[in-house]
């Protein structure tokens, strides 16, 4: 389990989650980047100026 850095909600993390993976907070919808597994840690993922890719 890990706490959403934006709204504090507790998020479940399934086994095969990896560092670098993006998960969405069920409560506030924030995009979170998994930065650690033991212990599980997340941070707000950077907002990316999405464009049609390179």
């Amino acid at each position: 389990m890990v706490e959403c850095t934006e709204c504090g909600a507790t998020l479940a993390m399934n086994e095969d989650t990896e560092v670098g993976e993006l998960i969405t907070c069920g409560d506030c919808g924030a995009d979170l980047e998994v930065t650690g597994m033991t212990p599980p840690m997340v941070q707000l993922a950077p907002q990316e100026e999405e464009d049609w890719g390179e």
Partner: protein
Amino acid sequence: MFVVKVGGGAGIDVDNVLVDLASQREPFVLLHGGSDETNEVATKLGHPPRFVTSVSGYTSRRTDKETLGIFSMIYAGKRNVEIVSRLQQLGVNALGLAGVDGRLLEGTRKETLKVIEEGKRKLIRDDYTGKVEKVNVALLRLLLENGYVPVITAPILSNDGEAVNADVDRCAAAVAVALEAEELLFLSNVPGLLRDLKDPSSVVSSIPKAKIDQYVGFAKDRFQKKIMGAVEALDHGVERVVFSSANIPTPVRAARSGAGTVIS
């Protein structure tokens, strides 16, 4: 002045294009890719290519530091040297440049990349990819005015002075706009935009820029990017963008006189 981009895919008769270019009287600038050979060499070097799909559905080459090195070996090294020396042999005073040279092509490196890999959404931080935003047109004019023909490829230079991978199609569009070229030609192993991918004769011969949205649907992923590049160029002063085959006789002359798909 026209700009030609010849693809780096397998089955593209680059020499066929170079021979035709050598007979052109009008000034031109050439850009080239090298994707297939990069994949081959990367695999042989034990660092096989990986492609990632951005969350909005576009694929690009996963470019970590090692991949960037291999990318430079083929684009800026082997292929650029081969094309430049072959053009010199044909009497064209070609001069090879990667985007990093003299800050010819600059752009922002994407610090992070949101991608989908094996069904998972991931954030990639060590990707050396960027979007071209600035062209050193003074350098191009200096070389053209002194009788040199620029032969340009990636990598480009990021704002903090790093070599980064960039889509050469998009670089071609940026160069065409910067040089105020009338025409931008994309020559590759496909005859143009096909209504039916399996039917090479189903080439859409011409598309008015305003109706581009009706046709984008025909294009598959990579081709959609090419069309985006074309639209960008047309929006900034280029008059005609042509997608045609590199493998037909006099492919440059043909593309300039209506072969393939012409967007204007």
